[in-house]
């Protein structure tokens, strides 16, 4: 099998919260031991609710944050420390696209200047060549040449996200992390941007990690999906399987929670309780207080992500079934 472009081994990220002069803060494990690998040209979806650690994972995969433990390998080599020269060189080959294009763009720079900026910083092009490359990038993401001299506030949300995408592609990256790239857009525009990302991914053979809470978009664009809950992956499978046959009780609830047109509220799994709080992680399986299947063992033992019946799940309840099946 081809070696992965990006690989995470035992990734952990901790933050301290609520620290003051008098009392030490509480340590929050935002990401709590994640192993994953993305092969060349593959799109891996990462889904989960707020506080599940998906954005932190994305930032660590790009080397924007150093993990507290574990490591990230890019093309088989360890990620250099942030802000070293080596790291900067690598940054040209991996890019981040995130939710709010207005925050990602400089309000006082024209569209063309912003798209050309990475080319100047990484000394890839200058002068007329720079101008040509910017024009080509704009055309590729569907921006009109006359928009080159506009400022971000003069464009619509969808057009701004195209600018962000063009800028991310400027250095010819190999690996892209998209963190909720279409969540702020209206549905008709969302579809335009999703199609654009798909086309670019296919044409360039980009390797992508696509972070989103929108399961329908993930279903559409991803080859494989990892479901996160409180900093851990609880299920991982090809996207065809995970949405048609979710196995982990949390994945089942998540898939069932998506309202479908023409189908009422009946038959949906309504989870009790609150979304997970990383600062108050339950013992044992983090999902057990909300889980309809949980028993005493689930409150004690942290389930590992293991293969049960041909599926990677982290759930003690999958185990006995695997044994009976065997």
């Amino acid at each position, binding site marked *: 099998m081809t070696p992965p472009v990006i690989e995470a081994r035992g990734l952990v990220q901790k933050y301290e919260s609520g620290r003051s002069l008098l009392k030490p803060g509480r340590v929050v494990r935002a990401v709590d031991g994640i192993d994953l690998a993305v092969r060349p040209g593959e799109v891996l979806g990462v889904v989960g*609710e*707020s506080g599940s650690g998906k954005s932190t994972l994305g930032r660590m995969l790009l080397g924007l944050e150093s993990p507290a433990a574990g490591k990230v390998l890019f093309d088989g080599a360890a990620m250099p420390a942030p802000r070293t020269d080596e790291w900067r060189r690598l940054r040209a080959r991996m890019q981040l696209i995130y939710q709010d294009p207005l925050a990602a763009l400089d309000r006082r720079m024209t569209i063309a200047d912003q798209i050309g900026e990475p080319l100047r910083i990484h000394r890839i092009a200058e002068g007329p060549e720079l101008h040509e490359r910017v024009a080509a990038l704009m055309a590729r993401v569907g921006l009109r040449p006359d928009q080159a001299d506009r400022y971000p506030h003069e464009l*619509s949300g969808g057009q701004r996200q195209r600018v962000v995408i063009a800028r991310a592609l400027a250095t010819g990256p190999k690996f892209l992390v998209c963190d909720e790239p279409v969540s702020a857009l209206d549905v008709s525009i969302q579809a335009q941007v999703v199609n654009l990302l798909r086309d670019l991914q296919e044409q360039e053979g980009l390797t992508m990690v696509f972070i989103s809470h929108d399961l329908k978009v993930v279903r559409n664009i991803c080859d494989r999906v990892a479901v996160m809950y409180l900093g851990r992956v609880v299920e991982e499978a090809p996207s065809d399987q995970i*949405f048609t046959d979710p196995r982990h009780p949390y994945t089942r609830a998540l898939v069932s929670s998506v309202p*479908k*047109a*023409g*189908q*009422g*509220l009946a038959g949906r799994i309504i989870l009790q309780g609150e979304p997970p709080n990383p600062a108050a992680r339950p013992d044992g399986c983090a999902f057990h207080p909300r889980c309809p299947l949980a028993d005493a063992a689930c409150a004690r033992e942290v389930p590992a992500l293991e293969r049960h019946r041909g599926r990677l799940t982290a759930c003690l309840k999958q185990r006995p079934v695997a044994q009976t099946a065997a």
Partner: protein
Amino acid sequence: MAFVSIRDLKVAFDGVQVLHGIDLDIDRGEAVGLVGESGCGKSVTWLAALGLLPGKARVSGSVRVEGQELIGAPARMVERVRGARIAMIFQDPSSSLNPVQRVGRQIAESLALHRGLRGAAARAETVRLLDMVGIPSAATRVDLYPHEFSGGQCQRIMIAMALAGQPDLLIADEPTTALDATIQAQILDLLARLRAETGMAMVFISHDLGAVSAVCDRAAVMYAGRMVEAGGIERLFAAPRHPYTRGLFDAIPELDAGRGRLNPIQGVVPDPKKLPMGCAFFPRCTRASELCRIERPDLKPQPQGGHLACFRPLGEDTRTWARAEELA
């Protein structure tokens, strides 16, 4: 007579018209969805109806609540309707709650204002309301501050506050958009349950068509400040007739479909300052004709039920054709 009757409601900001004459009736107890993309006028319709727009907004037309006119009425009269007869909840609960006031006190304020409840009676009713919207151990948490609750719980508290005046109509403006998927499911479930228990009517404003179809009896689709199609949920979802309605359905990926290109609506929503001369959807429409460019279609009742504003609607049988092609 409808409970709320909106006729030819128009709104302009700084001379730019954003709402171009909305007609809408809400009957007692029914749930109506308002669908459309940002800027189409879904929220503005209700903010205008309830007198919640800033002073620079110019509002005209008629909004009657059981025959009582709200547009142009004295502020005090509109205030008596707002909260007591019609309550509204918004997308972002944390910004609608006062962060430095205990949640119980904020709900009690509503109870004093609309029902004259004070002291122990107000407190008991506050706890009952929090209990009803599913806040666990409400009696002990009534004195907490908003930041001590999660986003989903804050939305529940907002709903409790809206219910404090025992409204006949609840306007829910994107009530689940800011929430996580499993919490969205809980809030949708809660709204449906409350409606069944209290018999109140509901207007559900959302861009999530799935959510609208799950909780509403009928829905209206808005585009660029006008209603373009309205009808019963089943008909609207099974056989949308306006190309914009159909476009919205087609643009949303399906969870049970595989990987494949999406079908976006090309182009963008028009700038309210530069609306096209004819149908506002004309520049993005795949079915438009010369007539659509120069004339604007009116919203007309349809023989098969519902309302439609389109010269070249999709036929009732488009889906059948597609099916026939598949079979052939």
